[in-house]
Every structure is written in C-alpha cells, then in structure tokens.
C-alpha cells in the first residue's frame, strides 16, 4: 500500500522534473544503496527514505495529507523520494542487463568436455551460457528442441551455429527418444515461483519429466529479476497466457470447422495455445541465478531478499481493487 501510493505520487507529479533533478540526489542514493550489502530492492530503499527526510514513517495516507499542508516540505521530500525510486529502478535495469553475463560466468563449472546439452526453444540466457562455455574452449554438443508452435529453437540453432557450436535440431516430440544421450538439460525460464516451481515455455514440463526418467540433471537459468513472490495456485491456467490459435492452424483452411452457424451453434473444434508450462520444483535439479547455483527449496529465501511482505500487498491491490 505504502509503496504503491508513494510511487504513484512521484509518477503523477511531473515528467519535466525527471530531467533536471537526478544529479542532485544520485550520490546520496548510491551511497545508501552501497551501504546496504543486500542487492538493491525497492523495499530497502523506501525504508531508508523517511529517516533521511526526517519524517516519521507513518501510513502513507497520513503522510500525504500532512504533506499537502506543508507543501514546501512535501515537495522536497517527494522529489527526494522520486529520485530514490528512479535510481533504484535504474539499478534494477542494470541488474537485468548484466545478469546474463553473471550467469554465463558460471558456465564452465557446469558444462564439461564432450558433454551433450539439450535445450528447448530460445533463451538469451541459455545462448550466452553456452557461448561462454564455448569461449572457454569447452567442446560439447547441443541438442535444440524447436519449441513448437513458435519455433524459437530454429533461431537459437542458427545463433549457436554462427558461434561455432556443434548443434542438432530436433522436434519437441523427439525429446524423449534423445534424452538418454543427453548429459544435461539447460533451459531458460519465464518466472520462478516462491516454491521453486518454474513458469517456462510450453513443452518444458515434458522435457523435465523425460530428464527425471533418465536421471539427467535439469538446470534452469534465471536472473534474479525472474523471481516471483507468488505461490503457484492452479498455475497451468491462472499464470498462463493463451495466445491465438492461428499459430497452430491456418484460419482459412479450418474456417469450416469454426462454423458456428450450423448444428447447435457450438463449435466442435477448440484450439488451445498456451504459452507456458509449469515445471514443479521436484523436477528441477538446480537453479543458476546471477548470485550462484541454488536448490529449488532455497528459492523462497532468495525471494525474501528481494521482496518484502509489503511488496506483496502492492502486487495484489490492483487485482482485487479493480
């Protein structure tokens, strides 16, 4: 609640200020964030701010009305706050930009000579991870499952070949047949849930099950920005995104199956095109984040570093409110 309101105030006030003010408080914020050894998070930042502004940290609505009476005080405080938030956001952006490198640095520890790596679809993190191992003169082969229906795997295979990696492209359905020859599965993620489960491109649950059957390690690469404080509840549906069936079928060819004007008006054909799969934590062997490798059962601790209970309230408000 507090976080939401404060950030809203700073967003609303004016965009012009954003340009001329940042220099002023940048140094202070940088110092503040450096003094805390934890990675920067909005929560830590907002906790610090009221102290420096010498205003008791009350509920935000009280703070707002107070601020209106003392407009001068309020404007300086809110400006300060705004810049702190902007700084924190910038840090996060930087974090996101560098997380690939930090994850890739760990590649040599995980990929060994003459191994066979399997991946599905395309992920920039995976690409850089594999390339980092290649640069360290590791020699290994990559199986790429194409990742229907978006076929991102084709792009990944192209990239890998361009970087000189021995690559084999397979269909998604051939994964089970190939998994016995694979030493390690390395995939990217869309989000990592608080219980260590993974929201990943569709098809990965199947790959994870195949990997479990053959005791092949299933490694998920995820930057810390992909950590999500939610516990999955009915993740196959509620945390999924259903995209257009036209990625699967050509509408023109199948328009007669979509004929609602005949029969009882109920279409017999229903095309479902989910974007994501939920991989339960027990199928994941290891997470590699920018802070190192972690077990699925440790993810909730990692998430607690980045999100506080108040952040969760911010997350939930708009859902129930609107």
């Amino acid at each position, binding site marked *: 609640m507090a976080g939401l309101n404060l950030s809203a105030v700073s967003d609303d006030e004016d965009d012009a200020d954003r340009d001329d003010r940042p220099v002023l408080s940048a140094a202070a914020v940088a110092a503040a964030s450096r003094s805390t050894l934890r990675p920067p998070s909005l929560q830590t930042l907002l906790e610090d701010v009221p102290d420096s502004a010498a205003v008791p940290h009350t509920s935000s609505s009280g703070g707002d009305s107070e601020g209106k009476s003392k407009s001068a005080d309020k404007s300086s405080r809110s400006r300060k706050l705004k810049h702190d938030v902007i700084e924190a956001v910038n840090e996060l952006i930087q974090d996101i930009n560098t997380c690939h490198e930090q994850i890739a640095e760990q590649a040599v520890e995980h990929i060994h000579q003459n191994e066979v790596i399997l991946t599905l679809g395309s992920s920039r993190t995976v690409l850089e991870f594999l390339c980092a191992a290649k640069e360290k003169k590791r020699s290994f082969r990559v199986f790429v499952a194409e990742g229907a229906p978006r076929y991102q795997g084709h792009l990944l295979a192209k990239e890998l070949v361009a970087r000189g990696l021995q690559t084999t492209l397979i269909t998604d359905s051939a994964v089970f047949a190939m998994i016995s020859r694979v030493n390690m599965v390395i995939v990217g993620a869309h989000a990592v849930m608080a219980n260590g489960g993974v929201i990943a491109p569709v098809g990965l649950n199947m790959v994870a099950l195949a990997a479990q059957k053959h005791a092949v390690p299933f490694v998920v690469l995820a930057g810390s920005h992909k950590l999500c404080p939610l516990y999955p509840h009915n993740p196959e*549906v*509620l945390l999924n995104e*259903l*995209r*257009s*069936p*036209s*990625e699967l079928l*050509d*509408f*023109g*060819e*199948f*328009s*007669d199956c*979509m*004929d*609602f*004007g*005949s*029969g*009882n*008006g*109920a*279409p017999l054909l*229903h*095309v479902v*095109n989910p974007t994501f799969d939920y991989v339960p934590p027990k199928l994941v062997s290891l997470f590699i984040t920018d802070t190192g490798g972690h077990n699925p059962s440790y993810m909730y601790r990692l998430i607690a570093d980045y999100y506080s209970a108040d952040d969760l309230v911010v997350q939930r408000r*708009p*859902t*129930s409110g*609107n």
Partner: protein
Amino acid sequence: MGAQKKGATARVSEDPEELARHPLQAILLADSFTTKFRPITLERPKVLLPLANIPMIDYTLAWLESAGVEEVFVFCCAHSKQVIDYLESSDWSSQPNFLVATIESHNSISAGDALRLIYERHVIHGDFVLISGDTVSNMSLTQALQEHKERRKKDANAIMTMVVKQSKPSPITQQSRLGTDELFMAINPDTKQLLCYEDKAEYSKGFISLDKTLIADNPSTVLHNDKQDCYIDICSEEVLSLFTDNFDYQHLRRHFVKGLLVDDIMGYKIFTHEIHSSYAARIDNFRSYDTISKDIIQRWTYPFVPDVLCGNSAIRVERRGTYRASEITLSRSAQIGPFIVIGQGTEIGNDTKISHSVIGEGCTIGSNVTIEGSYIWNNVTIEDGCELRHAIVCDGVTMKSGAVLEPGVVLSFKVVVGQQFVVPAYSMVSLLQQPTQQDSDEELEYADSSSGNVELPSAKLNGDITSDLSETRHGPTSELGTGGVGYIWSIFEGGHDEEWRHSVAPIPTDKLAKIMLDKDEDEELLTQDGNVLSPSGELKSDSDANDSEDGDNEGSRDDYVSFEKEVEATFLRAVHENVKVDHVILEVNALRLSYNMASVDCAGAIFYSMMKLAVESPHSSSSELHRNAADVITTWQNLLKSFLHDIDEEIEVILKFEEICLESAKEFSPLFAQILHLLYDKDILEEDAILRWADEKEGADESDKVFVQRAEKFLQWLREAEEEED
C-alpha cells in the same frame, strides 16, 4: 509491439520521396449505414454494442493503435452524441501518440456522404486506413502499407489496397459463418490486382459474368470464391476526391469498388493484400455478431480478447474458454459450461446452466435458468426457470419467471417479457413501435444503404423510407404476456423465409441442406428435395435463389411445350391459309428467338406438327395414313429442310419421330420404316443421318431398339447401296 510497428512505419516513410512525413491516419466510420441491427440500433449506435462485453469500437481502435495508426477520425452520424460521449469518457481521448478526433454529421446517409464530408474538412493528408467501427482484426498493417506505397510509387493509379482473407470455399461457409452472400473476386495472381468483385452472385443463373477485356488484358486471372472481404482498406488521398467527383457513390463496395473496376477511362486500380495467420472480420449482421463473438472467445483475435483488453486482470480466462470477472456471485450448483464470458457483478442462481454465451455486467440470473448460445448485455434480470436459446438480450431487459426465448429472438432495451410467455423464434422485440418513433438524427444508422437517392433526414421522410418494410403491428403491450412491455416487430423486408439468414441462431439443418442443394448441379434432385424439405409452416421454399432455380428448370420444359404449340399453330395456319413457305420459316425463326430455342428444336417441332396434321386428317387404314403423311411431307418438305442444316438435326428429327410413334400418335409405329424411307426419298434425311441413328441405337436397350428393328430392312438396303457405290 506497438512501438515496433511504429518504428517500421516510420522507416517506410523515410523514403526520399516523402520528405514531409505524415502520420498514418485512419477514418473510422462509426455508422454502418444499414438497418441490419434494428431494433437495437434505434436506441444505441452499432459501434457501441458490446462484443464479449466490450464495445465494438474498442476492438477497432485498439487494433488501429497497435497497427501504428497515429490519428483516427471517427465519423459519427446516427446517435453521434452517444459515440462522442463514449469516446470522451474512455481512455482513448487521453492516449499519447494516438489522436482520436470525431467528425459529426447529421445528414449523411451513406459511407459515400461521410467520405465527401471528410474530404471537405481537409484533414486527411496522404495514405489512410478506411475501416468501419465494427471491424475486429489483429493483422499487422506494416507489410500491406509498404506494398501499397511501393505500388503507388510505380503506378500513381494504384489508389487502394483491399485486405482479404482466405476462407474455406465450402458453399455454405460464407453464409453460415458471417451471414453474407458468396463473394467472387477475380484477382491477377502476379500483381494482386483486383479485377472483378461480385458479392451478389446470380444463383439463379449459376454464373457470374466477367468482362471480356478483362481476360484479354491480363495474362492470368484467378477467380476466387474462397476469399473473405475484411472491409479494411488502405486508401490514397485520391479516394476521397473520387467520392466527391462521383457524387452518386454511396456504398463502398457496391458503388465505389465496382465503379472503379468498371471505369477504364481514369484507369484507377485496386489491389488486394491477403492475410494468412492474422484475423480480420466485420460484423455485418446478427450472425456475424455471433460468429465473431465466438472467434474472440476462442482467442483468434488475440491479443484483442476480453482478458487482455480489460487489463488489470479484471477478467480471467479459465479452462474451456471460460472468462470470469473477479467479482461475480455464482451458485455452487450452477453449471457454467464451456466458452462463456461473465461480467462484473453478475449473480447466477442455483442449478442454472450456461454454455456458449456472453453475460454482461450487473445481471441477475435466477435459478433453473438455461442459457445457450445467447448474448445477454448489462443489467438484465432473468427470473427463475427461464430458457434462452441463441438470443440477444439488450441492457435492462427483464424476463419474468418461466419465460422462454426461442432461437433467433432479439430483445431490445428494457423490454419486459411476461410470465411463462414464449417469444416465438426470430422475433424482434422493442419498446419502440416499428418504424414510427425516430428522431431525426437517429435515422441515419438504418437509412437503407441500397437506395441510391439522397434522402433528407426529416421525420416525415423516415416514414417513407421505412414504409416499404411491412406495416407496423400496433399491438398492445400484452403482446409479451402478462406484465410484458414491448412490441413484437413484424418481419423485415426480407420476409419470413429470409429471417434465419442473419439471425444469431444456427441455421436449421433443413435450410443448410437446402443451401447445399442450391449448389447442386442436379436440378432434378433440387426440385424434389426442395419440396420435401420445406417445412409446413415456412412458406414454400426459403430462398429466392432456390425459387428461381426451380422455376428455371421447370420453365425450360414449359417453354418447350408452349414453343411446340406455337409452332404447331403457325404451321396449321400456314396449311389452312396457304402461307408461303418462306413466311412460315420467318415466323418459326422469330418464335425460336423469342423462346430462346435452338434450330434443332424447330426441326423437331415442325416435324411434330406435320405428323400431327397427318394423323388428324381423316383416315381409315394405315395405308391412308401413310398417304396423308406422304402428302404433308411432300408439300412442306422445303420448310423442314430449311431447319435441317446438319446431320445432328436430322438425327434429332428421327428421334422425334420415334417419340411420336411411342407416345402421341401410336398409329405411326407400324409405318415407321415406310415414312423413314419416304423422308429419305424426299432428301429430307440423308443416309448418313439414318445410319448414324442406327449406330447410336446399337448399344441401347431392347425396348429402345424396336424401331431400329422395324427399319432393319431399309437400313440394310441403305448399307448395301452404299457398298455398291464404293
């Protein structure tokens, strides 16, 4: 996504030729200029009608924004106030980089008028997208725009690009999906130029006509019946001025497109752009409303689906295409079937079954209600035990307990249906009486677009416009049962047999069978089945296409019979009045032309008349009959000969003779060989014709061969004579 597209558009216009970069503009016609959504459109403009609980215009505007359009001119006509108010209160008025401006008019009665008015305002500079506010699409404009601009650079006459989509060429798909007629397009496969556009194919004739020069001018032409017109056009500025030059252009397709295609003086060209994976369709009538709603629920229009458009996760998609708003009250025993949308604040009672339907916001639905394939808008009250099948129920309607809506019913705003009342299928119910209560500025939504002349928006004229609709039924409000409020409208101009075409209800199976049969080449089958299938209550046959095909088929037989009678009458008159042979030939030829017959038919008819004359003249024995026939043939041999130009016609005469012997004048059958010989002697029939006839009969049934056998002697003689000659 939007940003990416915008980038692409910007790149296109960085071309050196267009140094002054114009923002991409669009004209959105917020008026359909048709009457198809009556009676609902009497009270609310079509573009504000909810489609899966979101006004149609939002789909169009959201698509325009995502496709990189920066300025949209919304042309409002009917209920313009409502449209403007809606746009002002919505988010669209405050979007950065997306300007929505409204243009209001009170006296435009067609798309042509609208475009002429926009031209006068001088707001359009450069290419623009022309779309109506009831179009749903998720296509990317980038490629189509680029193609359009490149063509323009090469050929300044390429002024329009029309977006088309492939659809299954099944004969019924167009009808059953979108409720539109079959559409034929001739497209040059290399240049994608549109050469012919025919949306009202002449079923009765079973053909469409193409201009000869069209084939001559284009090395290759592909005629498509599997293309669906998306009603999204990318136009150049000239289009607007063309509308101004040709002030009689009203309808975009019927007048403008066809006008351009026919007009070869100016040489303007229209091209097509086919989309494959993306979706585009226009809501033209209740049936396409139903189909497109279902397509949206099935997510073909992604990302323009209710859960994304609403934002803020106010609506969630669940399994089997169930969309539920976050705050609904749902009884535990209610069965919420597949493919439904339920809006905010709706309450649903015990044991209620809902499937394939859209329920709006703030509705109260009682217990034991069955709702199937229906569209229920906002704040509707449905009491216990009601049944709704394939109906549209507008805002504020109350259905008292036990009321039933049969398929195809439309209840307009605030109608009350009485207890236990059954609203008959395909009825339109409104609080307003049929055409009488119209405000001057409301008439525009439904001024008949097909009427070419300009009608002034005065209340008196409104009466005229609609007087050709059937007369109002000034029934009492108890038309809708006890406590009911509203008038049941009598059927539109289309008549009873047409109402199913554009209704939300699925097409009844017998009608479907009939559409299929319409396409069937076997006309005999069509006639029989059409009669069998026609349900007792539904008039004789359901479509004029069917009617006229039946008519044609029977007509051709009738025609021949009456032609034969006419020829006989002419011939008899000639016999009795000693008319010269030349004159008879002339008269018969005239008859042939007026009945559209071939000369084969004339020969047959004349021969028939001659034989009939011979039979009818008094005779006591077969030899006398033979003499009579010989007399007639000798007298009129020249007449017969003048219609026998080749062997086929002569064979036809022999066949006709066989027919006469079998049916009308059995007396001739013993004389068959003799008369055949006589005809040969008189040089009316050549021996080739006779022998060919015999050869043809070789493979026929025994019963058919009777006359060949009778003439066997004569035939043998002929064959021998031939051999001797050799």
